[in-house]
C-alpha cells in the first residue's frame, strides 16, 4: 500500500497566469482527458473490439435441442475453482474430485439413488461367501481417450498407487481393509527392497486382461462402494508408468476414461474439456465442450452469471436472500434434495469442563437451531439434531429435538445439574469469516441469556483452527462432516471410536465402540441399519463431542438452458450441481 503525502499547494491568485490562449489550452486538455479514458485500449491493446462470446451464446451443433430431450452438441462455460491436484489417487479436495470425475471414471459408479452400478465393469463385483474376496470383470475392449487399451492392469495399478507410500494419498485409509495396503502405505521409512516385498503382498491382482481380484482382511459391507470412488479409478499405466511415479502437473499430458477429456488448461484460469468418444459409459456425453472458468470469489462468479458469461455457478450463500429475491435469479437458484454435510457444536469432551455431559447438554439445549438458521444463516440449511443424515438411516432431522433440541428450561436444569460454576469460562474458536462471526454472536447472546455464561470468542484462520482441532487444543468449535460416500458408516467410523483417527473431540464410549465394530463387519443391511440408528442415538443423546446444529445445503445458479445438471444434483455433488454425472448435461433450446 502506498503512503500518501501531498505537497503544500500554492495560494497565489492564478488570474495573472490566464491569458489569451486559455480556450485553446482547455481544448487540448479536454482531448487529453478523452485520451486518458481510452488509455487502456490504446496503450495496452489492439482495440479490435473483439470479445469472448458469452457463455449463453452457445454454439450448439447437430439437431435443434428440444427442452426435456437430451440432444447432442453445444458448448458451455461454468464456474469452478482451481484444482489443487489432478491426481485422484492423492487428492482430498471436493473441487479436485469434481473435475477429475468429469474425465476419469471407475469400475463402478453410484447412480442418482446412490446405488452402485457398473461403469467400466460388466457387473457388480462377485463377493466370496466369507466376504473376503472380490472378483471384478471389466468390459471388453475398453480404451483410454488416446485409444490405448484400458485393461485390468490399469485397474490393479490404481490400488497399487493409492496404497503407495510415496504418493501419500489422502484417502488411502479407505482401502486399508485390502490385504497389505496399510502395511505398504506406512512403509515410507523402509528400504526399497522391503517396500517392493510389501507391494507384492498387496491383496490386488490381475487375473487376465479384463479381470482382477481383491482380497480384504475383514468382511466390510461398504467395501464395494470404495471401488466406485475416485481413489480407485484406473491408472493410465502407459502414461504414469509406475504406480509411485509423479502425476503430470499439466492435465493435457494425461489420457482419460471418463465422458470428457482435457483439451487445454491454463493454470488458475480455465480447463477446457471436450467429449471423449472412447468413454464406455451407458452413452457418450451430450455436450461437445465444457469450459471450467476458475473463479474463487463467488460474488464475482454470480455477477458473471448475471452477465451471461456463465451457465452455472455456485451461489454466494452470503447473499442468498438477495439472490432469492431477484426476479430472475430467484427462479434459477437450486440445491440438491439431499445434503451431504452436517455442522455442529464440537466440544472437547475429555477435558474439563466439557467432560461434563450435563454441561454439553445444557449448551445444546440453549441453542435455538431454527432461529439460528432462519436469521443468521438466511434460511439456507436444515436445522437438525441427528448427526447421521436422516435419509441414510430412516430418521427425521428433528429426531432428538426432545432430548438435545432447544429448550431453555431444560437447558437451565441441565446446567444446574452439571454442578459447573456459573462463571465457567468457555471459549468458542471460530473461522475468520462473516458467517462464523454471526453464529458466534448468536450463541454468545443465547447462552448468556439462557445460562448466564459469558462465552469468549477466539477468531482464527483456517489452518490455525484445524491445527487446534487436530491437536485437541480447543474447547468448542463449529465444524462438521461432509460425506465421502452415502452410507452411515462414513459418518461415524473413525470419528467416534475411542482413539479413532478422526476423533478429535474426545468421544470415548465402550458401548459405542462395540456397536461401531459390529456394524462395520455386519453384511446384513437391515440389522446394520438398525445398529447405525442405535449408534446415532448414543452420539446424540450423550453429545459425544458433537451437538448437531444444521444440515448444510449448497446452492447453485443454473441457467434454464442447461439441463441435466440440476436434475442429477444429489448428495454426491462434489462442487457443482450434478457434476458426478456430467455426461447427462445438455443444452435445451
Amino acid at each position: 500500500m502506498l503512503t500518501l503525502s501531498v505537497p503544500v499547494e500554492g495560494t497565489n491568485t492564478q488570474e495573472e497566469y490566464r491569458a489569451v490562449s486559455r480556450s485553446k489550452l482547455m481544448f487540448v486538455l479536454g482531448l487529453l482527458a478523452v485520451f486518458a479514458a481510452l488509455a487502456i485500449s490504446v496503450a495496452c491493446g489492439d482495440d479490435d473490439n473483439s470479445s469472448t462470446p458469452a457463455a449463453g451464446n452457445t454454439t450448439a451443433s447437430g439437431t435443434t435441442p428440444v427442452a426435456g430431450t437430451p440432444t447432442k452438441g453445444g458448448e458451455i462455460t461454468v464456474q469452478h475453482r482451481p484444482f489443487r491436484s489432478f491426481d485422484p489417487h492423492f487428492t482430498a479436495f471436493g473441487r479436485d474430485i469434481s473435475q477429475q470425475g468429469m474425465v476419469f471414471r471407475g469400475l463402478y459408479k453410484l447412480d442418482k439413488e446412490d446405488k452402485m452400478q457398473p461403469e467400466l465393469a460388466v457387473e457388480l463385483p462377485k463377493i466370496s461367501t466369507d466376504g473376503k474376496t472380490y472378483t471384478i470383470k471389466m468390459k471388453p475392449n475398453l480404451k483410454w481417450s488416446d485409444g490405448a487399451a484400458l485393461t485390468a492392469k490399469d485397474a490393479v495399478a490404481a490400488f497399487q498407487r493409492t496404497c503407495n507410500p510415496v504418493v501419500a494419498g489422502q484417502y488411502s485409509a479407505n482401502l486399508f481393509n485390502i490385504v497389505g495396503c496399510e502395511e505398504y502405505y506406512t512403509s515410507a521409512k523402509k528400504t526399497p527392497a522391503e517396500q517392493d516385498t510389501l507391494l507384492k503382498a498387496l491383496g490386488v491382482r490381475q487375473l487376465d486382461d479384463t479381470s482382477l481380484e481383491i482380497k480384504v482382511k475383514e468382511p466390510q459391507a461398504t467395501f464395494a462402494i470404495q471401488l466406485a470412488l475416485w481413489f480407485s479409478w484406473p491408472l493410465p499405466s502407459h502414461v504414469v508408468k509406475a504406480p509411485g511415479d509423479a502425476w503430470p502437473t499439466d492435465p493435457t499430458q494425461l489420457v482419460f476414461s471418463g465422458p470428457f477429456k482435457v483439451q487445454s488448461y491454463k493454470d488458475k484460469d480455465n480447463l477446457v474439456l471436450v467429449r471423449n468418444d472412447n468413454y464406455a459409459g451407458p452413452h457418450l456425453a451430450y455436450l461437445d465442450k465444457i469450459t471450467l472458468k476458475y473463479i474463487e470469489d463467488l460474488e464475482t462468479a454470480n455477477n458473471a452469471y448475471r452477465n451471461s458469461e456463465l451457465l452455472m455457478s455456485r451461489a454466494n450463500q452470503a447473499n442468498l436472500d438477495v439472490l432469492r429475491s431477484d426476479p430472475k435469479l430467484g427462479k434459477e437458484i437450486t440445491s440438491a434434495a439431499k445434503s451431504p454435510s452436517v455442522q455442529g457444536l464440537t466440544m472437547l469432551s475429555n477435558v474439563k469442563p466439557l467432560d461434563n455431559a450435563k454441561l454439553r447438554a445444557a449448551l445444546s439445549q440453549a441453542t435455538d437451531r431454527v432461529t439460528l438458521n432462519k436469521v443468521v444463516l438466511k434460511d439456507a440449511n436444515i436445522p437438525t439434531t441427528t448427526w447421521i443424515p436422516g435419509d441414510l438411516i430412516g430418521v427425521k432431522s428433528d429426531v432428538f429435538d426432545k432430548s438435545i433440541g432447544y429448550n431453555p428450561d431444560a437447558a437451565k436444569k441441565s446446567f444446574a445439574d452439571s454442578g459447573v460454576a456459573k462463571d465457567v469460562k468457555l471459549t468458542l474458536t471460530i473461522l475468520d469469516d462473516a458467517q462464523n462471526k454471526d453464529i458466534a454472536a448468536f450463541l454468545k447472546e443465547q447462552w448468556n441469556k439462557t445460562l448466564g455464561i459469558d462465552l469468549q470468542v477466539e477468531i482464527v484462520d483456517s489452518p490455525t483452527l484445524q491445527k487446534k482441532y487436530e491437536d485437541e487444543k480447543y474447547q468448542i468449535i463449529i465444524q462438521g462432516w461432509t460425506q465421502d460416500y452415502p452410507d452411515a458408516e462414513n459418518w461415524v467410523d473413525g470419528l467416534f471410536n475411542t482413539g479413532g483417527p478422526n476423533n478429535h473431540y474426545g468421544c470415548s464410549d465402550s458401548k459405542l465402540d462395540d456397536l461401531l465394530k459390529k456394524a462395520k463387519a455386519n453384511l446384513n443391511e437391515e440389522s446394520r441399519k438398525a445398529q447405525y440408528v442405535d449408534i446415532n442415538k448414543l452420539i446424540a443423546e450423550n453429545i459425544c463431542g458433537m451437538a448437531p446444529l444444521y444440515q448444510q445445503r449448497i446452492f447453485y445458479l443454473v441457467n434454464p438452458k442447461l439441463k441435466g445438471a440440476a436434475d442429477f444434483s444429489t448428495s454426491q455433488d462434489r462442487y457443482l450441481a450434478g457434476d458426478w454425472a456430467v455426461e447427462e448435461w445438455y443444452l435445451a433450446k
Partner: protein
Amino acid sequence: MTGYIIRRLLTFIPLLWAVATLTFFLMHAVPGGPFDAGDKALSPTTRAALNKKYGLDDSLPRQYFTFLGDLAHGDLGLSFQRARPVTDVLKDGLPTTAQLGICAFVFALVFGLTLGVVSAVNQNGVIDYISVLFATAGAAVPNFVIAVFLVLVFSLKFGWFDVIGWEFGNPRKMVLPSVALGLFPAAYIARITRASMLEVLRQDYVRTARAKGVTEFRLILRHVVRNALVPVLTVAGPIFATLITGSFVIERAFAIPGVGDAFVNAVFVRDYGIIMGTTLLFALIIAILNLVVDVAYGVVDPRIRF
C-alpha cells in the same frame, strides 16, 4: 555510474537472503501448516505420509538449509496446494499480473497527469473542485468497492465489459480491472501533479516567459508541465512496483489468474513454497525498480552524482 549500479546489484544478494530467512522462519512460526487448510482434518497416518513426502518431517534448520541450497540452484520448491513447481506457478501468473499492472500504470499516469494539470490551470474553479473531489475520493475509496461499482454499472447495467477474465488486447476484459487498479494511484498522481504545477506556475521564469509573449498553451506544456514532472517521477517508481506485483483484491474481483491472488491465498493456506517464491520475487522487483528510480534521478538532475 556503472560502478554504482554494480555495487547496488551486489547488495541484492544479502537483501534477498535476509528476506528469505525472515520469511522462512516467520511463516513456520504461524500455527498450522500446508495440510491444515483442507476440506477435512487428516488422520495421523496420512499426515505422517504427507510430511515425509514433502520433507516436512525434517527439523526446521534442515528444511531451511535445504531451501537455501535449492534456491541457489534456482529451485523454489513445490507448491503444496497446487502440486506444481513454484517457478511454474510464477511463470504462469507473472505475465498476466504484469500486463494488468502496466495497463493500470498507464491509466494512472495519463489520467492522473491530465487531471492534475487541468486542475492546476483552473485553480479554485469548478473543474479544479471536481478534480480535487475525484482525487480525494479516489484515494479514500477502497479498490474492491470501486471494482464492484464498475462491474455493477458498466458490466451489469450497460453490458459494455465482461465481469471476469483477462485477455491482453481485448478491451472488454481489460478496461475495468485496469481502471479499478489504477484509480487510486491516478488520484495520487493527480494531487502531486496539481501541487507541483501550482508551485512551478509561481516561478519567476514562468512570469518571464509570459512577458516575452509565449502563448499560454506553449508555456504550460513546454515550461510548466515539464518541470512539474520531477516529483511525479519520484513516486512513479514505487507506484509501478506496487502495480506490477499484483493486487489480490482486483485479481480476485475479476477472476484474473495472476500472482497477486496466489500470494495472498498462499498465506491463508500456508503454501510455504508460494509464500517464499512470491516474497522473493516481489523483493527483487522492488529492489530493481528502486535502483532504476535512483539512476533516473541522476539522469534527470545532473547535480546528483553517484
